[in-house]
């Protein structure tokens, strides 16, 4: 089953909800496409980001049966992961490539 962008946004928001459980109220990440995930403009610290991508990986594996490693991406394509929208695009592309057309 190929993922849809909406499904991936759902997975990202669920993961953010879990990560937000650990964060002080004023550091929580909004569940919106333009929310900053990482970078100079704010977002998650390194531990928070590790938690976040582990959750996204896990949920994708559960839903699509595909293991996608976002850890490599986080080091090489920072800009692509900077906000929720771009993170979702990047994830969509990776999963689409990994899941063969039926």
């Amino acid at each position: 089953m190929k993922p849809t962008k909406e499904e991936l946004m759902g997975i990202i928001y669920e993961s953010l909800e879990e990560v937000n459980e650990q964060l002080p109220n004023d550091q929580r990440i909004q569940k919106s496409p333009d929310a900053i995930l990482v970078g100079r403009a704010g977002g998650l610290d390194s531990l928070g980001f590790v938690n976040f991508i582990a959750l996204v990986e896990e949920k994708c594996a559960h839903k699509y049966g595909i293991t996608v490693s976002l850890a490599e991406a986080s080091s090489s394509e920072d800009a692509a992961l900077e906000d929720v929208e771009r993170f979702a695009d990047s994830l969509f592309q990776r999963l689409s490539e990994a899941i063969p057309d039926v």
Partner: protein
Amino acid sequence: MRGLLISDFNINNLSSYLKKEPNAPVIDSVTTCYGEVFQTLLDDTAPCWSARPDFVVVWTRPEAVLEEFRTLLDCRSANRNDLKGQVDAFSAGLRRASERTQAIFVPTWVIPPFHQTQGLLDLSSASGIARALMQINMRLLETLDGVPTVHPLWTDKWIQLAGPTAFNQRLWYLGKIRFSNDVFKAAARDLKSALRGLGGRARKVIILDLDDILWGGIVGETGWQGITLGGHDPAGEALVDFQRELKALARRGILLAIASKNDESIATEAIAKHPEMVLKMDDFAGWRINWRDKAANIVDLMTELNLGLDSAVFVDDSPVERARVREALPQLFVPNWPSDKRLYTEALLSLDCFDSPLLTEEDRQRVRMCAVDRARKDSKRKVGDLEEWLATLKTTVRVEELNQGNLPRAAQLLNKTNQMNLSTRRMSEADFHAWARAEGRRVWTFRVSDKFGDSGLTGIVSLELAGTRARIIDFVLSCRVIGRKIEEAMLFVAIECARSAGVREVDVTYCQTPKNKPCYAFFQRSGLTHRGENAFVWDAARPYRLGHGIRLVCDGALEETSADINHSELTTSDHLR
């Protein structure tokens, strides 16, 4: 509270959950660099110890702190004696660090299931990894037995709660985080529960509804013969199990009480006559079975039990009653309750509010003591005059210096008592013992019994002697025996000791808390001179009067401090001269 988290893996997620978990206490914790476990435990001068932490968590992987266990995981033969020795060394480090904090929590060792793939060999004596894991955990527990400030915690429970992803390999390789966040969340909940217990803030009473809680159905409509309880019925069997668990909690010293809208005679008949009732009326410390508002009944009941509302949990099947009580009495804990009776036991056992660092004989006997209290109050109603009634009780107060035997209960009392508590100091057993042993300090414990029964060790007084002055530091009495002239007997012992030491004045400073007004009220009527807002003083030239009808029995060590109190039995102050 300030916590220090020591681990050989990244434990920052636990730190976050300790901070964010909504229940008290509020915790700020710092973590040490992972992998520096032994160095941190053994180095008293490490910076993390400079601000004394209120508690410490030492959470390790067995393969990281026990070299021989690593050898076993590699399927090489390990020396079992060396393995034991490494456990002992780890335990010694914990004991040494325990001097630098009030409590150390040590989650037991676990390993991921993929390390247990030897099949039949997992439990073999030669190379079984699962067997070795059990042995090292047992060895650790045994070597920590009797160390009152070190508290092992059962990690397996958190692993089971978190399910198959408890060991998260993604988090491990991404950030050296050993467990999934569900494990850390469960650990944070248990740690907070343990800290509440150690701080004397565990709940002490479960107030239960009857219809559709202790039994199925409405007893007022069907009679006791028609209620669902036991038998070949899933709900009936579940309710019997639920009652068994409640009875087990009562054996741990948690009081049971009833608040139910029913006719009392019908409800008590059901409890007495239904053959499958596990709980009997004697198991309940008190009850209000009538048609009044439950919130009002609960206030009344807790007043009778001499306990604050924040000591109680209210269990009711009706969301409306729960909402009403929750709104009227916010200090009460009113958990959401499942509608399916088969889930009652699980819901009860999931309440993380009864944690206690130890189980004393007084805890085991608490329900019986409440029954005795009821009999005592009944007799009070029959004998109108208070002095006359107190004389009929034939109260004996046994005084004993603080010693290793009474220390656990004394520390428990110090940390749990709110109302008759002069200073409301909270201290670990070790700290309290160390404090008491310093020069010029005396600590006594008081056991109270009367014709109705034994109330156990229910009082503590500590005194600090300095030249011609003495100061009462702790004055702690269980609410179960307040108002029976025990307070006067405790004051008598402290003042007589001070007098015999040549003291001129005995000072008392009341430290106000939201809950210890009864203590202030006692000192106001105690006969001591009120000097300043919260200060009282006794002129030690005068003896303090022991209440009539109190038989004071002083054990051994007390004789050393007071030439006057050298009798095995005293009945009035006249005997002291």
